[in-house]
């Protein structure tokens, strides 16, 4: 009888300790949670997709550069187009030919240039 009366409080004490630990844990976790209003950042990276640094992380302003898509291959490089224009001009009526060649003379030089020429043409030293 005595032994029974002495052990009755043990489950209560265990429950109290467990409750205390849980309370402390909850309080500790709450201190680690982000502040109200702060953004939640989830980084999901997919293959081939650029990740943009957040302004807070990089310390830069609110601007970024959209990654340039890989350009599709041009069907006709500019030099070939020049060839085609010149070849076509031989079959145009005189007024159209003058217009066409004049326009070609005054057109801006395309960005594509020497490398392209060297890659696909037969060059002859003169």
């Amino acid at each position, binding site marked *: 009888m005595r032994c029974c009366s002495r052990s009755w409080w043990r489950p209560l004490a265990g429950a109290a300790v467990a409750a205390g630990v849980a309370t402390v844990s909850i309080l500790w976790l709450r201190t680690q949670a982000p502040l109200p209003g702060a953004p939640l950042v989830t980084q999901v990276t997919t293959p081939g997709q650029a990740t943009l640094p957040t302004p807070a992380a990089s310390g830069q302003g609110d601007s970024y550069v959209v990654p340039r898509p890989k350009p599709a*291959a041009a069907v*006709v490089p500019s030099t070939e187009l020049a060839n085609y224009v*010149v*070849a*076509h001009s031989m079959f145009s009526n005189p007024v159209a030919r003058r217009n*066409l060649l004049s*326009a070609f003379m005054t057109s801006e*030089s395309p960005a594509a240039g*020497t490398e392209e020429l060297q890659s696909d043409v037969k060059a002859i030293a003169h």
Partner: protein
Amino acid sequence: MSRPLRTSGRLASLALAWAVASVAAAEETAQKRSVEYTPTGWLERMDQALTTRNYDGTFSHWQGGRVEMLRIIHRVQDGTVSERLASLDGSGREFIRTGASLTCYLPDRRTVLVEQRPPEESLVSFPTVNDQTASFYDIREVGHMRLNRRDTHVIAVSPKDEYRYGYRLWVDESTAMPLKSQLVDPHGQVIEQIVFASLTLTSRIPDSAFRPEISTEGFQWLRNDVTPHPPAGASAFAWSVTSLPPGFRMSVRSAQILPGSGPVDHLVFTDGFASVSVFVERQPAPSGPPPVPESATVGSSSAFSTVVDGHKITAVGEVPPATVRFIAGQLKAQGAAAAGR
């Protein structure tokens, strides 16, 4: 019959013959004049003047808000056409044509392109206005005015649909040279203009006038070989169009080699005024991303490229972009080409 009566009979016969001859001559003169002075006649005379006369002129070229001065020198001597077109400002590019050889000096690319055509193709015929042309354009004289102290006839060539551009031409009355020309879109808006500031017609132009002004030291020279007949790689292919814009027909089909390019089939379609060239070239197997159809413009001219059955199709012409796109899209391989792919 008495002698005086016989004499008067002869005189009457002579008078009648003279009258008939006079009427016939007058009719012939009137007929000739009416041909010369119809709007179509002015266009024919203008084409003839541009291709057969010797001239040296400076003109402004306006397009897309840009104005540039150019010089043109043209000579026909002993049946050989020589022409030099030079940019007086801007790129400094020059074109010099002598007979079957066309040399393009591109100082901005430090490159010279030399295109040599077979002798039999040196005198290439250009589209000529005919009755069929007139059914797709409204050709009329819309004025007679002074320009640069010269009397000119203003001829308007207006397209009847949106497959082609129109022209307004100020044709010099005495020489038939176009002193001013405007290219207009199907809505009548001017998209390109050429106006001569000076023009001299002369009987003799020295050879020195056809030498380039720029130094080509260090330039890369690109030439095409004289076209073999038929060039290997192009002759086995037969290409045809399933449909064309109204009035267009194929006028030329040839195989050639362009500078910096392989053998190409060159097809020319014309309505008698506008023309479109289609170039077909074997496309090497793509190593990167597949090519996509693309459009380009050179001045007011349009270009469109696409790939069909492993061949690169490029249409170029002084027509709206939709027209080159349409024609390029109608090209189909037949026969050996279809079997070989």
